[in-house]
């Protein structure tokens, strides 16, 4: 049996990181909020960098509920898009160079999104992960949660439904 020689580590890393940054940097609103993504293999952790403009209650102070909801929605959409693109990026079917030039494939659209606010968001960095519960041809269901100091004490959780881009056009 002939085994394919594994690709050099830097080739693998560069391909994945380039694709991810093209995906994230293509969303101006994620840049506005200061959201970036850490990647370990195919696992993503969203990072919300604290800024004074994210405050909703200056007396506590606490992050704006809308910021927390938006952070989770960005995490869910990027997480779902990443899961959708992963196979294509790894197989070479999706050319990373064209992603880098700004030609992104059609992304999923939010149908509905529900956020539960569990604790008030403190004025410091936040983290979030998304889990694609079901991804069908037309619809997908995604859960996401966000935390700050302690992952076992989430500040919010969310669930959303998404319309997948049509692949027949």
């Amino acid at each position, binding site marked *: 049996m002939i085994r394919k020689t594994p690709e050099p580590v830097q080739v693998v890393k560069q391909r994945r990181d380039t694709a991810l940054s093209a995906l994230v940097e293509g969303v101006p609103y994620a840049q506005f909020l200061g959201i970036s993504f850490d990647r370990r293999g195919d696992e993503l952790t969203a990072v919300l960098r604290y800024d004074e403009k994210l405050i909703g209650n200056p007396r506590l102070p*606490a992050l*704006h*509920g*809308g*910021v927390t909801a938006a952070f989770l929605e960005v995490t869910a959409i990027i997480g779902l898009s990443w899961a959708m693109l992963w196979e294509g990026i790894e197989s070479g079917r999706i050319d990373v160079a064209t992603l880098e030039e700004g030609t992104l494939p059609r992304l999923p659209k939010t*149908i509905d999104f529900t*956020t539960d606010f569990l604790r008030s968001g403190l004025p410091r960095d936040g983290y979030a992960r998304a889990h694609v519960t079901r991804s069908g041809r037309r619809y997908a269901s995604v859960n996401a949660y966000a935390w700050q100091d302690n992952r076992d004490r989430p500040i919010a959780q969310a669930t959303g439904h998404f319309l997948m881009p049509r692949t027949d056009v």
Partner: protein
Amino acid sequence: MSDKRARMARDFIQAIPHAQALGMQLGDIGEGTAEISMAYDAKFIGDPVTGVIHGGAVSALMDTCCGAAVMSHPDLPSVTATIDLRIDYMRPATPGQAITARATCYHMTRSVAFVRAVAMDDDTENPVATATGAFTVEPAQP
């Protein structure tokens, strides 16, 4: 009384750094109702291909508007926080147009306020999104 309520609601939104960052403008304030609009800004785009505003920015607008509706309720709660908020996206907002949210606090108990809201662009016949939420209520200090 209504002047006091309007002033409180106006102070409420002006004191929120994130509402300022999104350029939110307070419109009409009634008894448990609020209207807030947000001008189109390229920084808030979610899909660079179409130029459509990100759903998250619409969520922030809805959340703020729902909170303002709670604060303007005749029971005058002193402070409120979101328990949960669900947004349904009917259609993409038209690029270049402002988005206006209208929220109604339709029921309030001693501890919870129930709110619904609708967001529209220039086509006021077809909502961009609707929201339903529950908010905490801290009674006014005697």
